[in-house]
């Protein structure tokens, strides 16, 4: 149990809605959320389909623990085929709408087809209807949120929406829920907009029950909340500094990609760090950070709620940005800060607000701006392309201008909205795109943290830190310390992290729990809540099955082992400073061992043996 065992199917072409029983045989093998959503995508779409065509589907999926009292149990994922990468996309978000959807009685929504005109889906418990969104099209996420709350007069209604970036075709558009939480990566928002679906608004008052052994579940949940509270990362570091606790740490070990990954350390790191967010500023004596904040059910509360200095150039004439909203996470601060060379914390807080307001992935946005800045410096992109703006590394003015342009889908923003890969190809320098499978890197340089090179190269959704966060082991010593500069043992480490993370992402909980929890902490909570017996072994097997299912989808979509690669910069240009000085990524050493551990062929294909072992669909 723990599942509601119901899914809502929305045919946008026909404008029809239907209720379906959840496939519980699949749930037993693929759990929920990422795993189960992908299983449905695999069953119902052609891997070769056009991502922005009517044949692609868009799946909102919760996990069995979503909406329960388990710490961080508010997650949902959006699964689709990505227009940025052409690979499977699975973007995970917190906030409150996942739990609300579950409380309304739904495990999953499958959107198919394409609506002839803009619509939004309105759900109140078992009642669901498609409503015209003509009046919302062209509006930002924040304005959409306000208009819907005004219209329905329900302050408790939870809303996920796409903004102007998605409507304008930005290929890394996000779906934003609860104003500042994001299903952020791989352009899942672009797919949503391509279906003329503007928003999903949910109110659930039925609650989440169906817990197999409620008394045992409550005991286990209480025990494991205590484990999170007692851990230095989840109990102290993350609540106090958020993920931004990492900025200075990663810079010191020489793994903070800077200026489109030309360098690995950033002089301005301290100025854009979590610590800097606590410093009172000169103008009003207030720090950037107002408070930390939690997603649904989360006892870690790493979220940042921030303000921008009212006297800062980006907002001095825009009082609508003077209030609090979602502040900087590490990846966003890195992409829009270190990678563009901008050390102005108010400027990057502003661009963070814009990313939330109009629905853009700040990692892909920042990394694309960084690539454009390098091309500008080379004289390949000029002020003729930009209409006068000088895209210099370190320019806060250029950064904020870029954010406004991409958000509005205007002018040079159209080009920046294509992402780093297409931008660099357009200007004849594909080698300068810091991407894998077309998706931009996050904030860890694979020359200084070797496991992350293999992580990026083999990630099923293109470059991503959240598919196997070996930083935990290589930098933080969780669960045990490994040498970040060594390649030995990293293939096994990456595989173990990939499988465990696929499990966590399918349950409805946040991967940040795994700074303190292993599957030994998670399994008892799952077992108390869900039908059947859920051991650590079963959970790990499900994780490995999910990983292989995603891989198989990508192979059928046309990817090969040759796509498990890194840009030449990371393989040939050595790190120029810090502890990793002189190092390149040792991907060539790690990749064959990784294929072997996965049981794949030498060219990276999923073998029939593996397909049979996990009973993958043909």
């Amino acid at each position, binding site marked *: 149990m723990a599942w509601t065992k119901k899914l809502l199917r929305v045919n946008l072409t026909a404008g029809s809605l239907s209720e379906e029983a959840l496939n519980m045989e699949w749930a037993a093998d693929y759990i929920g959320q990422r795993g189960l959503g992908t299983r449905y995508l695999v069953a119902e779409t052609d891997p070769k389909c056009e991502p922005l065509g009517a044949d692609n589907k868009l799946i909102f999926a919760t996990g069995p623990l979503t909406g329960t009292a388990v710490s961080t149990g508010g997650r949902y994922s959006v699964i689709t085929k990505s227009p940025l990468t052409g690979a499977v996309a699975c973007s995970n978000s917190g906030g409150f709408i996942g739990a609300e959807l579950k409380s309304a009685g739904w495990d999953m929504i499958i959107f198919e087809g394409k609506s002839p005109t803009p619509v939004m889906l309105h759900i109140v418990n078992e009642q669901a209807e498609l409503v015209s969104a003509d009046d919302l099209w062209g509006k930002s996420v924040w304005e959409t949120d306000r208009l819907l709350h005004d219209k329905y007069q329900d302050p408790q209604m939870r809303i996920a929406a796409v903004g102007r970036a998605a409507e304008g075709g930005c290929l890394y558009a996000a779906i934003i829920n609860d104003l500042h939480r994001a299903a952020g990566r791989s352009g899942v928002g672009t797919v949503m907009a391509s279906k003329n679906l503007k928003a999903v608004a949910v109110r659930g008052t039925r*609650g989440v029950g169906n817990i197999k052994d409620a008394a045992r579940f409550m005991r286990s949940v209480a025990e494991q909340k205590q484990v999170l509270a007692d851990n230095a990362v989840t109990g102290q570091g993350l609540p106090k500094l958020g993920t931004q606790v990492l900025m200075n740490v990663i810079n010191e070990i020489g793994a903070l990609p800077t200026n489109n990954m030309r360098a690995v350390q950033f002089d301005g790191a301290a100025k854009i760090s979590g610590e800097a967010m606590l410093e009172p500023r000169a103008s009003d004596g207030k720090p950037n950070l107002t408070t930390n904040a939690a997603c649904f059910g989360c006892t870690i509360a790493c979220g940042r709620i921030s303000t921008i200095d009212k006297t800062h150039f980006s907002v001095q004439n825009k009082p609508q940005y003077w209030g609090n909203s979602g502040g900087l996470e590490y990846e966003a601060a890195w992409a829009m800060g270190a990678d563009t060379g901008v050390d102005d914390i108010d400027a990057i807080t502003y661009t963070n607000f814009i990313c939330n307001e109009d629905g853009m992935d700040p990692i892909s946005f920042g990394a694309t701006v960084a690539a454009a800045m390098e091309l500008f410096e080379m004289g390949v992109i000029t002020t003729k392309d930009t209409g006068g703006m000088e895209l210099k590394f370190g320019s806060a003015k250029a950064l904020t201008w870029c954010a406004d342009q991409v958000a509005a889908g205007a002018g040079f923003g159209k080009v920046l909205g294509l992402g780093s890969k297409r931008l660099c190809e357009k200007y004849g320098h594909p080698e300068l795109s810091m991407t894998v499978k077309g998706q931009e890197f996050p904030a860890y340089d694979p020359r200084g943290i070797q496991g992350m090179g293999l992580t990026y190269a083999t990630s099923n959704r293109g470059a991503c830190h959240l598919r196997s966060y070996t930083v935990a082991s290589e930098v933080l010593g969780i669960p045990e310390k490994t040498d970040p500069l060594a390649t030995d043992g990293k293939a096994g480490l990456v595989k173990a992290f990939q499988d465990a993370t696929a499990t966590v992402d399918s349950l409805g909980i946040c991967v940040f729990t795994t700074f303190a929890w292993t599957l030994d902490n998670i399994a008892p909570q799952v077992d108390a809540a869900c039908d059947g017996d859920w051991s650590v072994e079963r959970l790990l097997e499900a994780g490995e099955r999910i990983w292989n299912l995603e891989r198989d989808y990508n192979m059928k979509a046309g990817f090969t082992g040759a796509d498990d690669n890194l840009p030449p910069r990371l393989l040939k240009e050595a790190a120029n400073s810090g502890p990793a000085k002189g190092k390149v990524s040792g991907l060539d050493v790690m990749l064959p061992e990784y294929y072997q551990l996965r049981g794949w062929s030498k060219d990276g294909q999923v073998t029939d043996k593996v397909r049979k072992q996990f009973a993958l669909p043909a």
Partner: protein
Amino acid sequence: MQRSLYIDADKCTGCLQCEMACSYENEGVFNPAKSRIKVFTFHHEGRFVPYTCTQCDEAWCMAACPVDAITMNRQTGAMEVSEAVCVGCKVCTIACPFGTVNYNQDSGKVIKCDLCGGDPECAKACPTEAITYVDADATGFDKMRAWAAKTDNATAAN
């Protein structure tokens, strides 16, 4: 000794663990919509504020109830609604100046905080001690202590 729920909104992160604990205790499901304690988010101010019944001694809800469905639990000091007696007239929801007694469509009765019989689940579930259950006569002591500390500092500075 009677105890009271003491709420320190500055410590609240808006996680809703209290709402889940409350609804689970009272309704058997995790359902913030049916929680007797509510966390309100003031987004632009960056504030989260848990709010629930303070168990007034001369309770407006109790005085207004025409069928005497609301009575004081002498041990805990909580004003408790007897579901068997409540007729769902909602007069108490009008009488309460704070809005902390509310109608429940599913049962046709009103619901309010009853301090879980003296062991409130919300306080136990709160991860940040934003909600604590303390000596009813000393709910202000933490604040007094904090201000006292500042007073000492001011004296020392002179």
